[in-house]
């Protein structure tokens, strides 16, 4: 990591330090575990969105895709609505469905040439619609022990879900570093037109990235279902903007071609530490959102100071 990338990790350490000083409750081992557990779902969503952001596109589809996958998995594993008991297969189907929805936004982008901002917004609505259809007015509650166990059982002090998230980050990092898909996603953000001049057809890679992102959101939807013990249409509410915030705070910028999974993960931790810390130090619930917004802006400002140039373009 170059000096340019050091801003967000430093900000993370500083914010962690400040909360640790301010609140004895914050600096306990169990709270650190809690922070890591709480970061799990956001980390998985952010894994997916990071590849999209690296391409210079944007993705607002996580609320819909997570909702659809949450309901799907809840209806496929052992539950109170039907006699299904597919177990892991149910998880796989939910993730595949999510990947399919992601693929649709990618296809609409490259085939219809509609900006991703819109295609993903549209797909989010479609996902919510599909989820609402399947929900059909009765809450599907999960009785599958495996899925419930993910949220409850622990290994080395961390919930299984947290280990799943760690695995996702690792996979994401490997994809980014060692796969053509990952490197091309990065290159598309750097200079898409050049790839075409080099004879690379970018469209399949774009579709693949959105598909992969969809799969990550799908897994995140499953994780939320595991945590809540029930399939909720709103399982993904708010994750679109929080994932983007986390990624950007960590240095995966919206212009594309910058940052990556590890950057974004730092951002996830930063955002989660903030949320947790503000409760721990007892900031009024009325002010929490505002203080969090302020600190995010300040953190990004601090991170960009070393990179500032006179004729720099900031969008």
């Amino acid at each position, binding site marked *: 990591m170059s000096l340019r990338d050091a801003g967000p990790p430093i900000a993370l350490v500083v914010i962690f330090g400040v909360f640790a000083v301010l609140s004895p*409750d914050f600096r306990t081992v*169990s709270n650190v575990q809690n922070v890591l557990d709480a970061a799990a779902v956001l980390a998985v969503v952010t894994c997916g969105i990071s590849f999209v952001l690296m391409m210079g596109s944007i993705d607002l589809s996580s609320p819909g895709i997570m909702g659809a996958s949450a309901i799907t998995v809840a209806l496929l594993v052992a539950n109170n609505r039907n006699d299904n008991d597919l177990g892991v297969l149910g998880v796989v189907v939910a993730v595949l469905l999510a990947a399919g929805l992601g693929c649709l936004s990618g296809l609409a982008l490259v085939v219809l040439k509609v900006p991703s901002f819109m295609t993903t917004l549209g797909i989010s609505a479609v996902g919510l619609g599909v989820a609402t259809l399947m*929900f059909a*007015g009765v809450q599907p509650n999960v009785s599958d022990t495996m899925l419930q166990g993910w*949220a409850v059982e622990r290994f080395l002090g961390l919930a299984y879900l947290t280990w799943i998230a760690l695995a996702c980050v690792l996979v994401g990092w490997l994809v980014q570093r060692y796969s053509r898909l990952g490197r091309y996603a990065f290159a598309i953000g750097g200079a898409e037109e050049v790839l075409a001049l080099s004879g690379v057809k970018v469209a399949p890679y774009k579709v693949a990235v959105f598909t992969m992102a969809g799969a990550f959101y799908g897994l995140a939807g499953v994780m939320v279902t595991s*945590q809540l013990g029930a399939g909720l249409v709103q399982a993904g509410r708010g994750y679109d903007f929080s994932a983007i915030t986390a990624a950007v705070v960590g240095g995966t910028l919206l212009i594309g071609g910058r940052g990556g999974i590890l950057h974004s993960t730092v951002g996830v931790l930063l955002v989660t530490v903030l949320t947790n810390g503000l409760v721990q130090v007892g900031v009024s619930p009325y002010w929490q959102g505002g203080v969090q917004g302020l600190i995010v802006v300040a953190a990004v400002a601090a991170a960009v100071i070393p990179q500032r140039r006179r004729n720099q373009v900031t969008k």
Partner: protein
Amino acid sequence: TETAAGGDDAAAAGACEPADVTLVGQVRTESNPYEASWLDGGDAFAEQVGLTQERLTYDSDSTRQQEQISQLLAGDTECLVMNILPNGDSDTPPIVEGAEAAGAYLVTQWNKPADLDVTDYDSWLSHITYDGVESGKQIGDALAEAIGGSGGVVALQGVLDTAAAKDRFVGLEESLAANPDVELLDDQTANFSRAEALEVTKTLLTKHGEDIKGIWAANDDMALGALEALQQAGRDDVAVVGIDAVPDALTAIQDGTMTATVSSDGPWQGGIGLAIGYCVATGELAVEDIADEDRAWFAEQFLIEQDNVADFVSPETSEADFACDSLFSRSQGSMS
């Protein structure tokens, strides 16, 4: 320049043929079990009178609710009956004024500014709600009792700018005053949401640890989220209470994992609003004949605990509930 929308035939009560009546039920979303059951109740009533209900949802979006209603009122309003769940208190006045100008029959539930008086209007037939202060206090007391009268509790508030959230919290404060040994360790909002409640509860559990003996949640969805958090933290010594009597909460009470909830009867709410409107529209009931205390009233509610939960597991609405002469039988009295 004068208003174009709406007809001048306002409140020509009782002129409608039963077959000409249009029934509209509007709630936030069909993806919430309580609100979905509300619309189902509306359907049941409609079927009972040989009509269908138009189901509208606005996705917890106040502007969208207003937009839908003004579009609705721009159509044929002569025999229009609306049973509406306003998103928040502030959403009620424009709905009421719109209905009044268009002459559509309106019943609202849950949210209304305290100083807005139903009797000032002709088309706004009735406003129904549950006494939030009362329910907040009831579950507060149940919680205090469950933890043996003393110990620390935390509160999960609803969407901060709704009357339901505020009233219920006032009820909790009353309960705390009556139980001086129960201490409120912390209060946070989880926006009536199960997912948010899960996160907030986890954080509160690490913050206050063993001090937490009970969790007071302003609705059942949050209570269920809190239960998940407790399970994940391996805590089975914490009492949890909520409001709404959604099926999952009732199951939890049966299992003994949850302590208490207060009934809100979704199917009945969905039917009764349409029934009042229908009776007036078809002339079986005149607005002037509705007693003032029935224009804005608290509906009957019950504290549900393990001993009486069986009575509430499958809420039934009967045709009798919606008969024009017994519309107000569940009233617990006028809103003060």
